């Protein structure tokens, strides 16, 4: 037999995370996300003021050393509100994406694995839901449950299910039609093994990219709901809600428009960049580019 020679075969020269971080998009994303996590995690220590305490300073004080981002119409410190807002935003993103991911993945995987009439039923339902559009589903949910931040998170999460289910389904279907899956079936693997040890780990990379990009989507959608007044309620320091509350004072206090908007945009940008970087690093074509010889 030929000598065992791993050098014949393509090697992964660098680790996955290295490939992610070496892209400018990945590095920028990582920097912003670290900043966000720090702001959210250390808000109790770092925030100069209580985010909900009124008249922490004079109302509508412009940015200064004492109030780096100024104060709002009720005299609350904007920087502190932004920092505590990071906490809310990350929680909204995680919960909404969590709902979409878990339920979408379950539906998609089951449909792809079971085939037959259940597959048809599940996926046709997903198609119908998908054509409702996410906005309509989210609005309908808030209309039923009533405006609140929790309900907005649930609404955004539920609205995302069809897309996650479709992606998971397509990915699982393509994996299960590959010979290695049939090889595992022939080896005698039962449903649990096939679903959880074979299909799930192979579908996860795609879903991680989808969920990362989905975070920015969910954060935007929830901020939009809060902006409309259908999400966060006073005095919650939610960024979208801060924008709508400050609307009437923009001429006198443009910082009320600038900082919350910037915070949302940078957060969304970070998760978009992270998703792009992850996809690029996972793309087999980019692997080939490195390994081709």
């Amino acid at each position, binding site marked *: *037999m030929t000598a065992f020679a791993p050098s014949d075969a393509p090697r992964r020269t660098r680790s996955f995370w290295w490939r992610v971080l070496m892209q400018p998009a990945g590095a920028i994303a990582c920097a912003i996300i670290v900043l966000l996590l720090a702001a959210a995690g250390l808000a109790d220590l770092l925030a100069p003021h209580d985010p909900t305490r009124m008249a922490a300073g004079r109302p509508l004080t412009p940015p200064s050393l004492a109030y780096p981002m100024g104060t709002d119409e009720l005299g609350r410190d904007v920087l502190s509100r932004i920092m505590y807002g990071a906490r809310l935003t990350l929680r909204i993103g995680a919960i909404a994406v969590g709902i979409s991911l878990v339920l979408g993945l379950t539906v998609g995987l089951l449909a792809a694995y079971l085939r037959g009439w259940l597959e048809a039923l599940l996926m046709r339902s997903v198609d119908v839901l998908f054509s409702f559009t996410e906005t309509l589903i989210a609005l309908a949910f808030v209309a039923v449950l009533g405006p609140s931040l929790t309900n907005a998170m649930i609404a955004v999460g539920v609205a995302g299910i069809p897309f996650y289910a479709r992606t998971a389904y397509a990915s699982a279907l393509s994996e299960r039609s590959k010979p290695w899956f049939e090889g595992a079936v022939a080896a005698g693997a039962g449903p649990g093994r096939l679903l959880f040890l074979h299909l799930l780990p192979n579908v996860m990379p795609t879903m991680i990219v989808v969920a990362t990009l989905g975070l920015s989507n969910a954060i935007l959608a929830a901020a939009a709901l809060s902006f409309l007044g259908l999400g966060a309620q006073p005095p919650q320091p939610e960024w979208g809600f801060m924008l709508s509350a400050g609307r009437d004072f923009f001429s006198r206090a443009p910082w009320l428009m600038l900082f919350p908007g910037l915070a949302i945009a940078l957060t969304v940008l970070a998760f978009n960049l992270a998703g792009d970087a992850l996809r690029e690093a996972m793309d087999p074509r980019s692997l080939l580019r490195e390994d081709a010889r």
Partner: protein
Amino acid sequence: MTVLDIRNLAVAFGATPVVHGVDLSIARGEALALVGESGSGKSITAMALMGLLPARASMTADAMELEGQDLRGLSDAALRRLRGPQMGMIFQEPMTSLTPVLTIGRQMTEALRVHFGLSGEAARARAIDMLDRVEISRPADRLRQYPHEFSGGMRQRVMIAMTMALEPRLLIADEPTTALDVTVQAQILDLMRTLVRETGTSLLLITHDMGVVAQMADRVTVMRHGRLVETEAAAPLFAAPRQDYTRILLNSVPRLDAPLRPAPQPTPPVLGFRDISRSFAGRGLLRRSEPVRALDGVTLDIARGETLALVGESGSGKSTLGRIGTRLDLEHDGRVEIDGIDITGLRGRALRKLRSRVQVVFQDPLASLDPRFTVGRTLGEPLRIHQGLAGECLRTRAADLLAQVGLPSSALGRLPHEFSGGQRQRIAIARALAVDPAVIVADEPTSALDVSVQSKVLDLMEDLQRERGLAYLFVTHDLAVVRRIAHRVAVMRRGRIVEMGPVSAVLDDARHPYTQALLAAAPVADPTRARRPPAPMPHTPDKPLSLVSDGHWVAA
């Protein structure tokens, strides 16, 4: 008169050299075959010549002349004007090489208009003439059709017509028939030979198949790992290769006149198919059409220690029968028996238990292994399930299996992508062996491998059969491989067996016209053998099988 002259060509991707020190020259009307296994740099050489290397590649050469014109340092525009009228190229993938949203007519005429300034009418007339010459019927109507309305072989004809319409001085054909069935391959090769002879075009044929080389080439250049091994006229090269590598390459090619394997002792069948039929709901891109009958009343037995080859072209149903045998496809009529016991109705746990009797090896070695499972986990899976092994015991047994297929136990911790194609196929065989099966269904297990690797994998399979009394159901399209590995052979066409019997009887005394056509079409790695024109394929409905001699059945 030299058409092409390349000296000391080197191509690098970034800092990695992929081709170095390659010399090529082709005379007018000459056919040069560029032969090599995967990674030899043969296709890169052609792309360098066409000026179609990817942007990150760099190229140097001491000389690179086409019809006396230096190609080095030509501007993109100048090179573009040479592509088509001076050098034309045909690719391997007929299904994807034509633009799906444009008509054949549009695609055939556009280059004529660009290069020769022909009017629409004149270009159309030329296109019709060329389609006629590649034997496509009703050419004027066909011009209005789209690529998806043609079969693979027909698309390759269109590609040839499109390329030859520009009357290139040099035709480069990169594995032009590799994706086609043997009978179609024979027709396309015949067509290329005729066109090249008639037009006096020189041919650079890139291929891995020594049989195709023997049929087509005047001279042969052998490449390996990006380097030139030797260049020699075809007849002496096949008769007495000078280089070791060429000799190994030629010796690895399975031959249709090779000695037969001795027949095994007759034993009771381990795997039996009784009157198997299978239909697929006809599904095009969007439509549900008439169901396609993939298998139509197939009955077959495989005995212990025996290799039964299933031979046929695409759509013959051979792979479907293999899948039914491994119980990966359960939606069929008829019965499947193991050790004489009907197992057709088994499902769930009972079926899983029985799976250890029949194992499977697939064609694509990389796709056969879960990319996220280490070799140890892949081999351990059946052992855990069927024998309840765990821990050190499991590891020892997995290492033992690897040793049987010639791999060291250090491979256990590695992932599939860290291995070469041949090594992956050995791992797949080891997984199949793990549960000590009676039968292995091997679906084209060596078709994706280079010939030198194929030969070693076939050796391994033979050794394992001898040691363990394994039965193989060996699905293949290659009659030479059948001769090399099989004891008996069943020839399939359109879901039916048309001829079945001992290899010697079927291959040396073929009775069914389809078997005869397959044999005539199979390329033989011997340039001195007369080139038989492909036999016309009779399309008669098949009659039931009848016995013509000892164990030799023919549908006639």
